[in-house]
């Protein structure tokens, strides 16, 4: 691009016209729409959420939210004292402890089942491609559909299909209200999570399994290793990083997850977790300040996990 004398743009510093500067401006122009939407609708609200958690915001002043009265730590105090939140002994865990138990156990179960599935599909057999596609169904199907099918399968009436099967097999004598029994409900929600999300773990692990150097197995065979020993001393060490990363990612997503529990149990019968509690505070009792405070507590817990995880597990993995 040539600039004639007297052109006002020539007053700009030389760098303005350099190829590099032009490319950088083009880059910003290209990124700008994405950046605006993401920062405007995610980052700004995230910061705004901190602000709301210190204010008294209800339906009455929602339209004038920027002038909501400051209440200090009152919202947090109310959350910590809420019976739905705090630990009240083994009969009633409260959402904070339930969240931790729920996300750690479903993540662990998801990984174990994902690992079994990955080992299964790592072997060549006829129809493997189709089996692999079928294995991904639970993960890609809409959450609303699969959650309601599960509820329908777990129907508490004797006509519920699981009740019928288990009664025919003689496992149970009377129909069970699976999702309306303390303990059992939490267990089934965890099983549901594993059923729905194992394909993600499977894909991550499968990709790594197929990259394992086959000579390692050959060497182990020469040394007379059994199948179990090959798995324990060759496969598992090779998978360690992927297992760690997948665990972390799934843990975060499970901890943040709202839909699954809301649709399966509505947070009842000992399955209330922090995201569902946040929803109840905000959109059932319309106490947005309290809801925002709950969400902030959730976020802080998440960050604590991350820090512990990165500093303990990752360091051990590197050693």
């Amino acid at each position, binding site marked *: 691009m040539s600039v004639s004398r007297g052109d006002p743009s020539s007053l700009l510093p030389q760098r303005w016209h350099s190829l590099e500067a032009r490319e950088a401006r083009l880059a910003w122009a290209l*990124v700008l729409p994405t950046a605006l939407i993401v920062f405007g609708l995610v*980052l700004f609200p995230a910061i705004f959420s901190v602000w709301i958690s210190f204010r008294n915001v209800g339906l009455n002043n929602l339209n004038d939210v920027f002038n909501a009265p400051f209440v200090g730590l009152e919202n947090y105090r109310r959350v910590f004292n809420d019976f739905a939140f705090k630990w009240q002994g083994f009969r009633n865990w409260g959402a904070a402890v339930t969240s931790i138990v729920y996300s750690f156990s479903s993540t662990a179960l998801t990984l174990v089942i994902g690992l079994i599935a990955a080992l299964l599909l790592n072997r060549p057999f006829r129809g493997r491609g189709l089996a692999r596609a079928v294995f991904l*169904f639970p993960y890609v199907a809409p*959450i609303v559909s699969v959650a309601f099918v599960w509820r329908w399968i777990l129907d508490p009436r004797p006509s519920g299909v699981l009740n019928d099967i288990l009664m025919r097999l003689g496992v149970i004598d009377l129909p069970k209200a699976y999702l309306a029994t303390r303990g059992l409900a939490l267990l089934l929600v965890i099983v549901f999570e594993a059923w729905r999300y194992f394909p993600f773990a499977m894909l991550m692990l499968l990709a790594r399994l197929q990259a394992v150097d086959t000579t390692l197995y050959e060497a182990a065979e020469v040394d007379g290793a059994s199948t179990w020993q090959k798995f324990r001393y060759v496969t598992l060490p090779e998978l360690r990083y992927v297992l760690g990363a997948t665990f972390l990612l799934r843990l975060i997503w499970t901890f*943040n997850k709202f839909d699954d529990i809301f649709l399966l149990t509505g947070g009842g019968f000992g399955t209330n977790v922090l995201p569902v509690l946040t929803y109840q505070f905000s959109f059932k009792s319309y106490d947005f300040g309290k809801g925002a405070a709950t969400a902030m507590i959730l976020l802080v817990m998440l960050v604590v996990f991350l820090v512990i995880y990165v500093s303990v597990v990752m360091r051990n993995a590197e050693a």
Partner: protein
Amino acid sequence: MAKRQPISDGERLTLIGHLARWITWQRFIFAVTLAFFLTSILFPFYWMASSSFKTYAEIGGRKPVYVPGALRLDAYRELFNYWRFGRNVINSVRVAVPTSLIAVILSTLGAYAVARLQFRGKEVMLNGILIVYLFPGILLIIPLFAMLARVGSTLGFEVQDNLPVLILTYLAQTLPVALYMLANYFRTIPAEIEQAALIDGCTRLGVIWRVTLPLAVPALVSVAIYTFMIAWNEFLYALVFLNDRQMFTMPIQINTIFNDPSPRPHVVMAASTIMTLPVVILFLALERFLEEGLSAGGVKG
């Protein structure tokens, strides 16, 4: 070729013997595990589809009906006539298709810049977007709701029951992933091809349009499908932002039918089948393109 002869007893024995030798403990365990996986994955889907073809009598009986007597469309009729599910399907399409198209266009531009161009603030932006990806949706919904209510009352638009508002929030959720997936793909296209076009006098935008995009079609298709699926399946934001039955997307309408005082599981299953079918078909048809995106976090959650 030997003449066909009836199988003698001796041969039969070797057949069984052959089978017995083929079955080892390893193979047996493998077959049993595979069968277990396939049944527990497929049974819920079978139950969904088969329940949708049952009559109210079959659904409400004392014993579950494992195979419906006939392919009855009672549930579908009730779904479309009484619950007016047609408009919910249309609403979902009206949300999912624009989300997908806009996300592909915007993320293509952004991803190209990230993959090919140098600019200050790139790392900060990339990290910011990655963090955003790990943020709980429930944390954002309260401030978004309050913020959009405030902005809406100033600019004079309604936040509730406004599909474009919903599209905007879905874009915020899908753009980070889309940008990541596309940027990774663009990096695999050799820069030399583009440089050749630049030297031949193409502008940058010309290069993107004529060289990069045609090479990136598989990635574009998979990003389009992922963003479509996210918008199609999304529940929480739709639940908060939609109040009017006229505007409900499918997930919210299914939730409403489920919570109806008189339980009608066959109708819920019919609606679920309609909602699941396109996703599963898309997925089976394009599995090869899509699998890689899944492990890259295409479906967040």
